[in-house]
């Protein structure tokens, strides 16, 4: 991390130079609707998830936002000692950002879940994984939506 090599002041200056703001410590939080950030906070509190380990697979272009296939996978051995407990999925620009929460167990053998979701417009889909050791990881994928799927 930059903070350890540059010191606090250097890291702040670097962040300010990169994003134009000094209050965004993580790229993950950089671009997100306030409603999405609030929905994530309701679940994980003030903890900050790390980037990585969570992969979202969605079509880059969805012609029909009413049914967009989604696969989420998390890098994990899925053993009793080290597994994924939950994956929370959010659609950043839907009328309400919550999409689903998957509760996983070591009995699955692999950390994956598939479903089909509605997307109202072109946007990022965001997943936050909670591991058995309490660590949090975040991943995202952008989907371009041709016809929105929220029945407006």
């Amino acid at each position, binding site marked *: 991390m930059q903070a350890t090599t540059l010191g606090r002041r250097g890291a702040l200056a670097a962040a300010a130079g990169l994003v134009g703001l000094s209050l965004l410590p993580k790229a993950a939080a950089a671009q997100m609707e306030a409603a999405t950030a609030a929905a994530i906070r309701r679940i994980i509190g003030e903890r900050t998830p790390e980037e990585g380990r969570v992969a979202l697979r969605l079509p880059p272009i969805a012609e029909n936002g009413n049914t967009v296939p989604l696969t989420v996978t998390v890098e994990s051995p899925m053993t009793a000692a080290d597994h994924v407990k939950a994956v929370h999925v959010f*659609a950043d620009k839907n009328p309400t950002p919550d999409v*689903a929460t998957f509760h*996983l167990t070591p009995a699955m053998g692999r950390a994956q*879940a598939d479903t*089909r*979701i*509605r997307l109202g417009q072109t946007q990022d889909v965001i997943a936050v994984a909670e591991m058995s050791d309490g660590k949090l990881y975040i991943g995202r994928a952008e989907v371009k939506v041709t016809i929105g799927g*929220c029945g407006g």
Partner: protein
Amino acid sequence: MAAPIGQPRVRLPSQVKAGEVIEIRTLISHIMETGQRRNQEGQIIPRDIIKSFRCSFEGQPVFSMDLHPAISANPYIAFPFKVERAGNLEFTWTNDAGEERKLTQAIRLAA
């Protein structure tokens, strides 16, 4: 009145070996009314969705899901399961009104 919950369907591979990770695929017919739409008189159509899904093996939880209105109509849910022994998988879908649909499917090991 809650919308009808259709017949659930579950697909498992026909041949399963102990130690294998299989994919369980499920589908249930349901309108998944978002609560965002309006009828012809301009009134909001009340939300009515399948809000939860659970799968257990011989009483032990395997996988569950909390669904929100952003899940498509006729929810499709698939997930892996590591087969260790023969037994019954139990599936439960619950709607906003608390009504449930259950399905049990046996895992048999290939000889």
